[in-house]
């Protein structure tokens, strides 16, 4: 009886884990393109700034749910920030032991929305699709601050922004100092003349 209970518990755990494993897919953008289904998102979600992550791409035949393999040779992915402020070509690679699943590693360095642009061909069909992060699709890149404890460590992009700000203030300070110096010299001129 105990053995039956143990088996039942093990099955329950497996079933539950299957249920859990489907949750991350909910945070992916699923789209039918011709006879294929593309599922796109971050491989690690929630996705945090400064952390290694990757494009998580799954392509299946919609009708049969059969994985489409070999797309690392025919598809290309670009990661786009904002309205195209910066674009990074990604190298698509297969995921070991997971047919039809591909990844492309990247370390996102800014908080906010990203767009994956997938171009190329699947068999003979041309593909040019944009998958954008957002509600109901896949998550935007988030700040790590909410998870940090006990100290908040600024991200590299924050540090760079602060450094830029400090440099600007330094430039203003140097200019003001130069003006003050010139005024001081000008004020000294009458005194020197009197001597």
């Amino acid at each position: 009886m105990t053995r039956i209970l143990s088996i039942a518990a093990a099955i329950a755990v497996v079933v539950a884990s299957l249920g859990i494993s489907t949750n991350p897919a909910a945070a992916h953008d699923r789209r039918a393109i011709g006879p294929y289904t593309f599922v796109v998102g971050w491989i690690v979600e929630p996705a945090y700034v400064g952390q290694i992550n990757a494009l998580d791409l799954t392509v299946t035949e919609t009708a049969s749910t059969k994985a489409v393999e070999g797309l690392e040779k025919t598809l290309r992915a670009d990661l786009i920030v904002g309205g195209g402020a910066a674009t990074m070509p990604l190298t698509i690679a297969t995921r070991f032991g997971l047919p039809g699943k591909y990844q492309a590693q990247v370390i996102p360095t800014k908080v906010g929305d990203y767009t994956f642009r997938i171009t190329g061909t699947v068999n003979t069909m041309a593909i040019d699709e944009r998958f954008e992060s957002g509600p109901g699709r896949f998550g935007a890149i988030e700040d790590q601050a909410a998870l940090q404890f006990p100290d908040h460590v600024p991200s590299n992009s924050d540090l760079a922004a602060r450094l830029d700000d400090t440099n600007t203030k330094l430039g203003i300070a140097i200019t003001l100092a130069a003006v003050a110096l010139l005024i001081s010299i000008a004020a000294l001129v009458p005194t020197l003349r009197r001597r």
Partner: protein
Amino acid sequence: MTRFVRLACAAALAVAGATAVPATASAHANYVRSNPAADARLVKAPAEVRASFTEPPDPKGSELQVLDTQGTRWDQGRTTASDEPNGLKVALKPMGDGGYTVAWTTVSAVDGHETKGSFAFVIGSGPLPALPDVPNASPAPSALEVAGRALSYVGIALALGGALFGLIVHAAEGPVEERRERQLLALAGGAMAIGSAALVLAEGDRLPPRLELLLSLRLLAGLAIIAALAPRLAARPRRYAAIAAALTGALTATLVSHAAALGNGKDMTLDLVHVVSISAWTGGLSALLWVYLLPRDRSGPPLRATVWRFSLVALTSVVLLVSAGVLQAFDRLVLLQDLVETPYGIALLAKIALLVVVLVIASFNLLRYGPRAERRALVRGTMVESALLAGVFVAAGVLTALAPPAQPTGAAFDETRHVAGYRVELIIPTASPARTRFVLRVHQGLTPVTNAEKVALRFTMIEHDMGETELVAGERAPGEYVVTGSPTAMYGTWKVQAIIRLAGKEDLTTLFTVPVSPNGTTASAAALTTRSFALVVFPDPSAPVAGAPIELSVVVLENGNAAAGKVVTGSIVAKDGQPIGGDTFTASEQGSGRYRIDVPALGAGRWTMRVQIGSPAETADYIFTVTP
């Protein structure tokens, strides 16, 4: 000739000062809301169009024109006041399906200023018509109007400053000084009267009754100053009469101001203080030159004492002027960056810079030439001061001709942020959890940012986990991105993240905190409770109209969290308080804990719908009114 030049200089100063003051007071009736609402989609043609504005429009000169996409008018032509505050309405001819644009023109009942704008609605399933590529705008005032204002304020400044000078600083002595003081007051009275008459003429047939009354009062005040010059009246009572008349004129200026139109007591007080203080300073300076310094040579202690007394008056005026100006600026500037990014701010900065220089020169008069009784230097210093003050007033004239960055919208939520050099303004007309219109204005300086690749608003609630909702806005006018929806479907605090995507740039993002409360303008939203659930129910449209379908949104909470997967029904159980056996409608789930009951057209009346969540024990009655 020199004398003429000096007189001209003094007059120019007063004119410039006068020009500077009035436009700060300009009032405009801007669009707030309408029925049909802007961008509304209707299933049947409305019988009339109603619109409300930020300030009272005068129906005599105001108009609502309803045009189809061919430019054919569908209104019946006579725009009248509606029963809503600051509202207008126009009856419509029978209209077919299609897009319609309402082109509105308002004439402010406060000061007669004209403002134009437009909004659109569609009947049926067609596309919304494009709005004209022109933002809401006020035409430039006519030359006659500008001249009328300038003369009015010259009069106020000369009368107030001149008479105060005679009472506090130096009473005219001898026939020459007395003649000059009378000349100054005659000029003041004439300028006020002619200026007021010019303003009446400039308004023509559109002159609102309230403005007519106030301008008539100002004209009478000008005539009273001239009447006070009668030889029988002694100098002192004449000056008091001039001050009383000038203050009446200043008060009429304030009463036709933007502050008066909004009924803002603080702003009205500041406006009056601003007008009175600048008048006392500039008019006094004119009197110092014309009545005291120019007629004859002065020296010694009397000159020192006079300059000291005038400096005290001027200093008090300047302190009041600057204080009132700064406080007004706080109300008229939205962001600190406005000072360098908007024409209004740049003109304000220029005015402040010139004022600082004027004060430096004035301090020379006070601390150096006055104590040393150097008349020639004082005349020279006062002339330079006058010329620079004219510059200050020209800057102020430019300033007041421009629209300040802070424009009233009448919205429940209106907040502006500065993001990476861009101004991002979020406007939400209602604070209730109703379906509403979200307007995001994006500008760089005052230039609208057009053709954004994407403008999105993302909504998350702070108090409860309602998930994240996104609405994508479309561009309805240059720099104005609009979307309608009901993502803020619950009382509480909502975080609204605005994302603006511009080609080739990083996204502009900013976060607004929007309170959604029962104190919103839409009374039809209701918070209800059943045994186990808390409900928020609101209709779309927020003011249901007879014969048109109604969508009732029902947000269901259980122990403070969204209750998903419930069977929600709505049954019509009463009309006008009388029980009836009406239809029952089953809601569709729109999201976690959000349900929508689609009700086909109802007749006009007060309806009661029994909302049931699951079991018959979990019911609450929602009462709503359908207007004819």
